[in-house]
């Protein structure tokens, strides 16, 4: 037994790594050698080390999803890379130190040979690949229970009583469910115009948004306010007087406007975004289904508030037109309702229309972002481009 077993002082990884010229060290299986499935090797970029040291890194995902690793601003897929080589993993001597070893040291002396121990033979390691955040689920979750007139009136009736409801998500609930970094999640909440109501992140029901915007426009006309210089305090005051909660009133300005100056101490001023307001009305008109283009334009002009000028190019990525005989028809097809993973996006696009001209396709693909892949290579991967003659418009079809 003496011969085959380790017989020396544990030197650990540090001795292996600092082995001096003309010296040697015995390598043995560790007293605690085993599969150690709880030990995982993760290869990562040096630039992520500070995030690790400061504990700004989390793994996110449901049991049925592939885990992603998130820093505060980026999302990475975690992939296992196996190897047929043997990776002998050796801890430093002060980790996984078996008790008997200490004794050994005390008793007998340092004349013994140094040993470094292999704790585990690793089958490979995990590595990280930067990916686009998986945010489509956020819209689904928030759409389960949008904030509505009904709820707004309920809250007024029974103020103070806590209601238990389905489909309500706090920030912590969202980070538990959405595979995205904190900052990617925040900017998506902003892009979806979500607002925090009583601690829950909500989007507004479309009727509620209609009512809110109508009330804002109505009051602007009534009070002779300029759409380019709305005082936040005034707007909030009238909307609250009309029964909207204060934070929703403020949120309305965020949905349909831009802040022009951040008042220091005083009230902020906002400018309504003409395109957003016009698009809002266009969407509303097209909710009923497709229309003849002329009818739509006529209706649209009528609906938008005085002083705003709807232009067809505002509807890029919102509508599609098609020629039927001599008539042009228009229907709603909003890029914001499409999935954000390229494969799913292109599949829906080609279901909608088998052939796309570039000018039509561009608004529906330019928001697609895959780390490490340019938009050209995305097109190359998911579409087939044909160009009958050199000066003809290229046509994109499914691959």
């Amino acid at each position: 037994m003496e011969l085959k077993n380790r017989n020396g002082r544990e030197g650990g990884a540090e001795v292996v790594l600092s082995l001096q010229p003309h010296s040697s060290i015995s390598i043995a299986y560790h007293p605690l050698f085993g599969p150690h499935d709880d030990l995982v090797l993760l290869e990562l970029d040096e630039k992520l080390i500070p995030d690790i040291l400061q504990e700004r890194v989390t793994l996110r995902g449901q049991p049925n999803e592939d885990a992603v690793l998130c820093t505060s601003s980026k999302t990475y897929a975690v992939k296992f890379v196996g190897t047929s080589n043997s990776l002998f993993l050796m801890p430093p001597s002060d980790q996984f130190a078996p008790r008997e070893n200490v004794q050994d040291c005390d008793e007998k002396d340092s004349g013994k040979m140094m040993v470094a121990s292999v704790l585990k033979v690793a089958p490979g390691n995990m590595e990280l690949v930067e990916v686009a955040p998986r945010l489509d689920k956020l819209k689904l979750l928030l759409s389960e229970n949008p904030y509505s007139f009904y709820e707004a009136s309920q809250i007024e009736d029974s103020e103070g009583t806590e209601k238990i409801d389905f489909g309500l998500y706090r920030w912590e609930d969202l980070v538990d469910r959405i595979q995205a970094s904190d900052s990617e999640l925040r900017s998506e909440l902003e892009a979806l115009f979500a607002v925090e109501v009583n601690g829950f992140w909500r989007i507004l029901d479309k009727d509620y948004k209609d009512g809110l915007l109508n009330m804002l426009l109505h009051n602007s006309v009534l009070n002779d306010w300029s759409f380019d210089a709305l005082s936040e305090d005034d707007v909030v005051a009238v909307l609250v007087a009309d029964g909207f909660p204060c934070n929703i009133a403020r949120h309305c300005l965020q949905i349909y406007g831009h802040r022009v100056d951040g008042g220091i101490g005083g009230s902020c001023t906002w400018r309504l975004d003409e395109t957003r307001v016009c698009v809002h009305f266009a969407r509303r008109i097209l909710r009923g289904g497709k229309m003849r283009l002329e009818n739509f334009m006529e209706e649209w002009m009528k609906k938008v508030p005085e002083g705003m000028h709807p232009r067809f190019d505002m509807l890029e990525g919102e509508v599609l037109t098609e020629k039927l005989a001599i008539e042009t028809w228009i229907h709603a097809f909003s890029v914001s309702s499409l999935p954000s993973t390229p494969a799913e996006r292109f599949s829906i696009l080609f279901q909608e229309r088998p052939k796309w001209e570039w000018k039509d396709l561009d608004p529906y693909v330019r928001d697609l972002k895959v780390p490490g892949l340019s938009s050209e290579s995305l097109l190359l991967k998911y579409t087939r481009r044909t160009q009958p003659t050199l000066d003809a418009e290229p046509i994109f079809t499914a691959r």
Partner: protein
Amino acid sequence: MQIKVKCSCGQGNCPEWAILELQGVVEAQPSFQDRLRNLHIGLLCRASSQESYTFTVGYHELTGTKVPLKKPILVLKKTRVSDGDAVEGEGEEEKDSGGDIASPSNSRVQLAVIGIIRHKILFKTRPKALISGPQTVAMGKISTPSSLAPNCGYTFA
């Protein structure tokens, strides 16, 4: 669900682990197959001042070099903790508002960084058979994808 990656290493002081990487697998003689713990594998030598090493396993000698990793590798340790340190299975249903977090025992996984690897000693060539038996305790054989050392016996020195 969300797993925070804990790290108690402080500013850049993660304990450094080492990797010895070699082709194929080291196999102990069948009689020791189940008793690998504490078993001697081989002798690692640094012959000169260069970062070149030999690793002698049984009658085989591997030659390799110490290489810095292009990207560091973290050693993470997974531990399971039951929610809020509560006694397992008790009072946990009400804590879990989601319902679709399907971990059966309702325990949570924690990951902690316990080490970092920045170098490995890589033996990328096939082993060389030693003509005369080594003086050291020889404990195993190396089987490689080739038929270089298929039946190399296990010997006591």
